[in-house]
């Protein structure tokens, strides 16, 4: 709780680049680390996709890298597949997307958009990054302990996770670091947004992006402690032989287990999902915030219904605390409880629809510019639409009986997080790049990134919905071959998965590898543009209205030359009688 920024004027290398307390540099640290983890999580998935498409076939070339314990002669062991699955989920969510959406974009742009010189607690901000970093390192180390990384799914349900190998212990310690990081970060965001708004920046003049970060921070603040409890208790079960999650009378491989017993298996699931459902909104809300900025900017008109969107957002935040058990419909729920959670789940879909409808109606009457950030933002809409809509059958417990734990669920949430959230993040990177570096990213390479990625995302995830409807379970090492309707010799087995349904795995994997190929233009563009991209001639190259564009590019320490004053709402584009088609918040005359 420190308010001095002065130390870094003459700061040493360490102060400036490593233990920086400048929100912008911390944002960049979060951004780079997050992108690297995203890439890492992506690579884990590419490996899994080989095994799913070609079960038990040796992986050419790379296979030899992984050693006897993981891929003897290049063939992936189920042990390793399960590690990849659990760590892909964990890394993508907790080390990739959340740090990017909140740590990077939030850190960098929230203070700028509200006209603040920095975050309210710069040192806490630094601590939050380093806690995240340690959490990430812990997760990476876990791949190298005996038995490998955690292998009980990102959900880590006991008793499986309690009897699992050492990697699970590191997973739990890693999570405790990440929880600490989020906690420090969320306090900082809320205080910053409430306390450091520049003169004239009333709550109802805040850009929608800031609203989404505020809501997200509350979710992190209040939901993460539940996971902390779950992690502590599971650690106790693993290290001190307690039985919080272990019922009496377990017999594992014929051996009677030596536990005192009396614990509750479902307690863990309640604690976990009490966090993890709000967590999925942590993934999507900042994404909605980012694309709102970009859609308003590139339609050159105000968004259609700022207030309803804000109300819907806050309502969504509240509701996200009371839907968690829709992940647990099949744990033996009675009618009363299942009806309650079905009802709340249906209710929470309405504010999402309100926000999405408002964004889509914004397009009407606009003068739409199709630049790269806008393409990603526009693609977000139908992709999130598919992801959100496929949430509805899952939310009806009766339909969930057939769909639970199938690839339908995988398809559902990947549509929201991958072509949804990731597209919003890409969109944000292209959009704000000039502010951070003073240079623009290349448009052509941007198109070369967007179109193939957009198409492959659908080639990847649409077939998963089909596989799920056909009844294919998730987390299958052999991609469902055990459940094939005929053996390779052509004998009928009574299985439900036809060759066509299983064959879709090949299509999906091809899509994934193609997509990997077309990330190269992005990575190249990203680094190339930092040093050699086209310089922007103005601090406001997109002719936008929000306060971050009032600061120099890149903004100096302390952000603004003079404290900006806010004169109007965030999206005053094409105001009648104004001389230009944008009226920034920070200019007195329209």
């Amino acid at each position, binding site marked *: 709780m420190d308010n001095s920024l002065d130390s870094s004027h003459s700061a040493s290398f360490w102060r400036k680049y490593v233990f920086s307390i400048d929100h912008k540099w911390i944002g960049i640290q979060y951004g780079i680390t997050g992108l690297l983890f995203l890439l890492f999580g992506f690579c884990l998935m590419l490996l899994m996709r080989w095994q799913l498409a070609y079960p038990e076939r040796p992986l050419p070339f790379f296979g030899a890298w992984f050693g006897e314990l993981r891929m003897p002669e290049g063939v992936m062991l*189920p*042990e390793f597949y*399960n590690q990849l699955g659990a760590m892909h989920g964990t890394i993508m969510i907790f080390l990739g997307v959340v740090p990017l959406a909140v740590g990077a974009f939030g850190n960098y742009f929230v203070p700028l958009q509200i006209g603040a010189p920095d975050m309210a607690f710069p040192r806490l901000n630094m601590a939050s990054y380093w806690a995240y970093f340690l959490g990430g390192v812990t997760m990476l180390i876990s791949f190298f302990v005996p038995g490998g990384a955690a292998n009980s*799914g990102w959900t880590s349900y006991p*008793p*499986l996770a309690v*009897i699992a190998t050492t990697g699970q212990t590191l997973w739990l310690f890693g999570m405790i670091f990440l929880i600490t990081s989020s906690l420090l970060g969320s306090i900082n965001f809320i205080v910053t947004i409430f306390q450091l708004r520049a003169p004239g920046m009333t709550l109802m003049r805040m850009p929608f992006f800031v609203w989404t970060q505020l809501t997200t921070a509350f979710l992190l603040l209040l939901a993460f402690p539940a996971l902390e409890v779950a992690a502590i208790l599971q650690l106790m079960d693993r290290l001190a032989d307690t039985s919080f999650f272990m*019922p009496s*009378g377990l*017999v594992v491989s*014929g051996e009677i287990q030596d536990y005192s017993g009396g614990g509750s*298996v*479902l307690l863990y699931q309640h604690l976990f999902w009490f966090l993890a459902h709000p967590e999925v909104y942590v993934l999507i809300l900042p994404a909605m915030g980012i694309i709102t900025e970009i859609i308003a900017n590139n*339609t050159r*008109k105000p968004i*259609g219904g700022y207030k309803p969107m804000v109300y819907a957002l806050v309502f969504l935040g509240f509701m996200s605390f009371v839907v968690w058990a829709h992940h647990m419909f099949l744990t*033996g729920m009675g009618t009363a409880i*299942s*009806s309650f959670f079905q*009802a709340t789940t*249906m209710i929470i*879909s*309405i504010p999402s*629809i*309100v926000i999405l*409808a408002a964004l*889509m109606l914004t*397009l009407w*009457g*606009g*003068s*739409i510019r*199709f630049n790269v950030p806008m393409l990603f933002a*526009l693609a977000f*809409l*139908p992709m999130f*639409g*598919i992801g959100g809509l496929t949430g*509805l*059958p899952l939310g009806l417990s*009766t*339909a969930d*009986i*057939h769909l*639970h*734990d199938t690839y339908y669920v995988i398809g559902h949430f990947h549509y929201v997080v991958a072509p949804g959230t990731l597209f919003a993040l890409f969109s944000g990177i292209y959009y704000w790049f000039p502010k951070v570096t003073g240079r623009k990213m290349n448009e052509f390479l941007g198109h070369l990134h967007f179109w193939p990625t957009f198409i492959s995302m659908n080639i990847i995830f649409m077939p998963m919905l*089909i596989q799920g*409807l*056909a*009844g294919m*379970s*998730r987390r*299958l*090492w052999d991609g469902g071959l055990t*459940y094939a309707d005929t053996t390779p010799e052509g004998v009928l*087995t*009574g299985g439900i998965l036809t060759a066509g349904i299983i064959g879709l795995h090949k299509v999906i994997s091809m899509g994934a590898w193609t997509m990997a190929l077309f990330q190269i233009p992005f990575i190249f563009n990203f680094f190339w543009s930092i040093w050699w991209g086209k310089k922007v001639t103005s601090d406001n190259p997109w002719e936008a209205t929000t306060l971050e564009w009032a600061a120099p590019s890149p903004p100096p320490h302390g952000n603004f030359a003079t404290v900006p004053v806010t004169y109007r709402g965030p999206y005053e*584009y094409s105001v*009648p009688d104004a001389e230009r*088609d944008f009226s920034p918040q920070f200019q007195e005359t329209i």
Partner: protein
Amino acid sequence: MNLMNLLPLPELASAHGYKIDFIIYVVHGLMFALFVGWALFILYVLFRFHRRRHPKASYHGIHTHWSTGLEVFIAIFEVALLVGLSIPFWSSHVDAAPNRTDTVELRVVGEQFAWNVHYPGADGVFGKTDIIHIDQQSNPLGIDPNDPHGKDDITSPNLHLPIGRPAYIHLTSKDVIHCFSLPVMRVKQDVIPGMSIPVWFTPTKTGEFEIACAQLCGLGHYKMRAGLIIHSDEDFQSWLDEQAAASAVEYDDFFN
């Protein structure tokens, strides 16, 4: 063309399953209509308001309340699904027991990575079980050798059932959480150690189907498959008799 074949759902072989399928179809209908509607809207708008065709944006945009109307409609539709279909199904089927006298009652116990089916035998009473009697090979369920009710019990790695009679199954697990999934019966239920959770369904087709495990339960999760064999009533009876004879021999061999 039959509308009910548009989605790639697996074959249906239970009496209640059509209700689940019906909900799935109705929701997907709604989803499809919404998606196509909005997609057409977006495509039109992107064309019509392209900067080239519409160089000057309108500050006020669209004046309409139909989106509110649409939202209200969706809300009503969702309530109808809940109150009309999903909740009634849950209370009348999932959260209830079959009320017929010809019900076949049995237990299924999951373990890494197999299913054990336990029939009460001719006396209709399950033998007592205790983990201290468990022997992976000969007595995977831990049936108490001193309990007379246990003498005629039948255990099987596959699930055999007669057609047309409700099967009422109590599910438990010996080790970790599994998920008892019978896709063709539209039955799926987590199998949780320390809890006994019932499910029931009435098979409507004879044939060989499968039990799948749908919850990650360790290395062998992917192959935790067992057979589900639906017999005609007579066949089922003769299967039971056969098993009873065989297990009586085994039982005597083992305990005497």
